[in-house]
């Protein structure tokens, strides 16, 4: 190469813009150091604590019968929505998609263990689909950078749940996520705006640890009739008849009203209304629970 060419190339490269991005790629193992019993073996029936739900959500949840998952065949292989998937069996793989022509980030892809769910988080500025487009379990996600934090907006979600004991999340919800990577830790804050079932946004956060040794297998699911029920049967509890709603209150000594959830119960001053709380003499349910394999009922 001649001196001239080198000089010209050097001038062209001087001042080339930096790419300002954080890479979330990798195998992420979920940490269940919060809400272990709810996220692993599953939430107790009637436990609506921590949720700023309205009366409609409460009645839906009270009416929900777990039999629906097996009797209604179409429920058997129903995945978590992309918002709830982050809280469940959340072993996750993330990888980037780079445009080969521009070498710019097109988006991130995620693969979750549960139901092999995959999602694309678009970062190329494309618009969300129109309101009459079909909804999916993962929804349609776009994202922007805010410094080192990725803010994701998801619309077009199918109806799903805020908690898998029947508390619903509607198909009109908009979900915002904030992804933050600190070394080998990933924190995702999820903000659910649901005008149908929430009186204020539900803000939760989950954590992962980078685990290069993780191998996510195939989840797999086949649906089949399991019980001889009449076609079209939809198991549900009529209003006021669900016999399980007071169990949480009895097991944990909580006032029944507190277990019904609602925005008021999320704030510190609500503790003044918990005077009737009487802790059981000792723990006898899920006293240890940090992984799927050490979470024992007793």
């Amino acid at each position, binding site marked *: 190469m001649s001196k*001239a060419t080198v*000089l*010209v190339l050097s*001038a*062209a*490269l*001087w*001042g*080339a813009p*930096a790419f*300002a*991005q*954080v*890479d979330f790629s990798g195998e992420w193992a979920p940490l*269940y*150091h*919060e*809400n*272990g019993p709810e996220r692993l073996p599953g939430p107790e029936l009637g436990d609506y*604590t*921590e*949720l700023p739900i309205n009366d409609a959500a409460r009645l839906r949840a009270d009416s929900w019968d777990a039999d629906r998952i097996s009797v209604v065949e179409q429920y058997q292989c129903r995945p978590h929505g992309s918002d709830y998937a982050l809280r469940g069996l959340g072993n996750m793989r993330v990888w980037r998609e780079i445009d080969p022509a521009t070498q710019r980030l097109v988006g991130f892809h995620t693969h979750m263990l549960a139901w092999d769910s995959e999602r694309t988080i678009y970062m190329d500025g494309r618009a969300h689909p129109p309101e009459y487009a079909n909804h999916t379990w993962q929804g349609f996600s776009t994202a922007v*950078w*805010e*410094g*080192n*934090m990725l*803010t994701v907006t998801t619309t077009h979600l199918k109806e799903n749940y805020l908690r898998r004991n029947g508390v619903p999340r509607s198909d009109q919800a*908009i979900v915002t996520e*904030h992804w*933050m990577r*600190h070394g080998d*830790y990933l*924190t995702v*804050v999820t*903000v659910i*705006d649901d005008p149908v079932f929430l009186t204020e*946004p*539900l*803000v*939760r*956060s989950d*954590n992962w*640890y980078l685990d290069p040794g993780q191998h996510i297998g195939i989840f797999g699911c086949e649906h089949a009739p399991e019980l001889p029920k009449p076609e079209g049967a939809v198991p549900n509890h009529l209003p006021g008849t669900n016999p399980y709603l007071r169990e949480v209150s009895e097991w*944990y*000594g*909580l006032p029944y009203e507190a277990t019904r959830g609602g925005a008021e119960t*999320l*704030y*510190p001053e*609500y*503790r003044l209304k*918990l005077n009737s*709380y009487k*802790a059981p*003499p*000792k723990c006898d349910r899920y*006293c*240890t*629970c940090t992984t799927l394999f050490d979470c024992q009922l007793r």
Partner: protein
Amino acid sequence: MTKYLLTWVAVATAYAQLGPAPAKPKPPRNAKEAAPVDFTGYWVSVVTEDWRWRMVTPAKGDFASIPLTAEGRKLGNAWDPAKDEAAGEQCRAYGAPAVMRIPGRLHLTWADDNTLQIDTDQGTQTRLLHFGASPNKSTQSGSGTWQGYSIAQWEPPVRGVQSPQQGLGATREGARGRSLEVVTTLLRPGYLRKNGPPYSGNTVLKEFFDLSVERNGDPWFVVTTIVEDPQNLTEPFVTSTNFKKQRDAAGFSPAACSAR
């Protein structure tokens, strides 16, 4: 001559297209000036996780979600609030590794240009996050305290192995950090929750504070808390706690520590 003239023209053209180098900003004089985001103000915890372990004192032996060692479990099962009260140790669950999980309100201010102060209403605790502190100063501070000694920095941008270099395929300057990173040591032994799961005086506490503004305009911050205590924990104990900003001090109700 022609060759060098042509080269000069090419360089000048490239320079003209790229423009002159941007003026480098002056380095900030102190941590307050360098703050990429503003954490000051009043904040309220919104308990959407671990509700029955935070809003009330859980039953003895209820250590769900905490990866305790056998030793930690044994100590936790020996929890005796009456004994703690008698010993004046009501604040054992209000140490730095746990105080952010207690439902309450915080007031964040700059104590000085290089110290961010967190006052909690529950337990009336004060945390001082020292920017620019040297590690040596922390090791010389003596015996542990409930809040320990916290060294803070604004999280530096992600970098490659080498120093950032410009050019094709070289290491690059990462995104501007917006996080507050805090490492706390010199802690007095305490509890991770009100019902006694322990952490030792050798605990290293790492925290990351991140700010966001939601669709309805509400500012929130999340603090990711990593408690490293091999004596009592089989692995780092990681939680993330969410706070919503308040307009004012409404509801900030100082209350003494409680062992029960």
